[in-house]
């Protein structure tokens, strides 16, 4: 757990970067610090590994004040990922990843062996190990950056806009991979971004900061979408809050009814097409119990007959949700 206790940072020259910030980032969860530029999110992040010292207040990791610890030793125990990865250009990919294990005094051989495994884990084939950072694409560099941060298996990781320098397609790919990785590893992560959509997608918790370094709201993504604390949070979270909030409700809770004549299936019972007055139309898509309410809503809107089809793991239709049933469910959900 990372704790901010009434933390203030005032820069010489008068600017208040962080204003009486108190919050707790839970162990094993990913907390995203988000806000407009000048909201002190990066400053706050850097106070965790003492790259910035607070003017007053305390930052604690698992109850221990970081200011009492040796800077270099503290940092070797905290993974760090930055925008553009910040890889060492003069070292191979493998030796970049091995950086912290080497600092911790492991032998080169041990460090490299462990690093090779990590490269695979972040989705880089072994032949990348001997390349130099300049020979990699932005997305690949960012993967190496993540592997380097994980190399010494630190319980805590800090990420400063780690995915903002890559194009949207690669970014969403990295998001998916990172979420999968985090599910396995369960690190305590503090991440900074200016992109609220990224925060809502990745964060178990989101801390929204406003200009001047004031915490506007701390909560789960759904709490922020459903109950924004004030107008600033509401406008920052953006439009379509209601629709986006549906992403966090599981499809499993929506009651289904048996399929009717308008659904065409093959012999095995897999949905194939819709039967409409103007002939058969393609099925478009299906959902499973693991999908979200947002997926069902989308399918029901797109379907020519206003029906979303649920399938099991084998692809066989096991129920449908009709347009008006969905509306009834959404109304019931609100109360």
């Amino acid at each position, binding site marked *: 757990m990372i704790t901010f206790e009434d933390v203030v940072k005032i820069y010489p020259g008068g600017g208040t970067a962080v204003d009486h910030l108190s919050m707790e980032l839970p162990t094993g969860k990913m907390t995203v610090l988000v806000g407009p530029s000048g909201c002190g999110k990066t400053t706050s992040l850097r106070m965790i590994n003492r*790259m910035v010292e607070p003017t007053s207040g305390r930052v604690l990791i698992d109850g221990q004040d970081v200011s009492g610890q040796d800077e270099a030793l503290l*940092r*070797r125990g*905290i993974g*760090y990922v*930055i*925008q553009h990865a910040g*890889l*060492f250009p*003069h070292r191979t990919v493998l030796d970049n990843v091995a950086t912290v294990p080497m600092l911790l005094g492991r032998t080169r051989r041990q460090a490299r062996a462990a690093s090779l495994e990590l490269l695979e884990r972040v989705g880089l084939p072994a032949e990348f190990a001997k390349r130099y950072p300049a020979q990699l694409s932005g997305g690949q560099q960012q993967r190496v950056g993540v592997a380097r941060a994980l190399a010494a298996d630190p319980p805590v990781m800090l990420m400063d806009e780690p995915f903002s320098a890559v194009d949207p397609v690669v970014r969403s790919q990295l998001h998916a991979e990172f979420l999968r990785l985090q599910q396995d590893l369960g690190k305590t992560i503090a991440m900074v971004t200016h992109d609220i959509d990224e925060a809502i997608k990745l964060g178990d918790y989101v801390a929204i900061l406003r200009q001047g370094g004031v915490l506007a709201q701390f909560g789960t993504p759904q709490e922020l979408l459903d109950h924004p604390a004030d107008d600033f949070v509401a406008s920052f979270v953006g439009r379509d809050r209601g629709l986006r909030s549906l992403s966090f409700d599981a499809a499993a809770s929506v009651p289904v009814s048996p399929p009717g004549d308008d659904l065409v299936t093959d012999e095995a019972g897999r949905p194939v097409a819709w039967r409409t007055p103007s002939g058969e139309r393609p099925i478009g898509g299906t959902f499973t119990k693991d999908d979200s309410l947002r997926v069902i809503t989308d399918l029901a809107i797109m379907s020519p007959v206003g029906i979303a089809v649920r399938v099991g793991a084998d692809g066989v239709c096991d129920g449908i949700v009709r347009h008006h049933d969905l509306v009834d469910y959404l109304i019931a959900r609100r109360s």
Partner: protein
Amino acid sequence: MIQYLQNNSDTVLAALRQHLYLALVPVLLGFVIALPVGYLGVRFPWLYHPLVNTCGVLYSIPSLALFVFLPVVLGTKILSPLNIVVALTIYTVALLARTVADGLRSVDKLVNEAATAMGYRRLRRLVDVELPVALPVILAGLRVATVANISLVSVGALIGIGGLGQLFTRGFQLFYVEPIVVGIVLSVLLAGVADLVIVLVQRAVTPWARA
């Protein structure tokens, strides 16, 4: 020409040896001194401009003037090779201190920041990260300094010690063209070989720079 070389091989070889010594010892000394001096110009940013200006002024002192002036300051004899070594070391430091500072300043801020965040302490970061990354810039400066030194040594002949330069002075005194040609060819060859050696070393130690 061949005849001249055969008859004077001892003189020419001695001149070549002295030339090498007078040119390269200052390169080494200058490099060793320039590293900390250049680093100070980066560690304390307010020092950078005074450093660059001082280097510029030092480098603009005419070499002959320095050769003649140094014995007065150092208390050495006018014919001591030490004068040449000290003078050329000053030029080397003037060239390289700035190069070292510029090289270190050229290191991407993000790279330094990442190194600090990984848990490098200042000195180890300098040795493991900053200097290696600055090496292409520093070695480029070293090439310039080495070639410049090799050509400057000859000027020392005017005060009596100057390696291959002595072949020039002798040739002029005797109205004899062979030693002058031999001196020029050997100086150029020496500069070319020294430059090549540094380039090869650079390729070997910075494989990443060509990536």
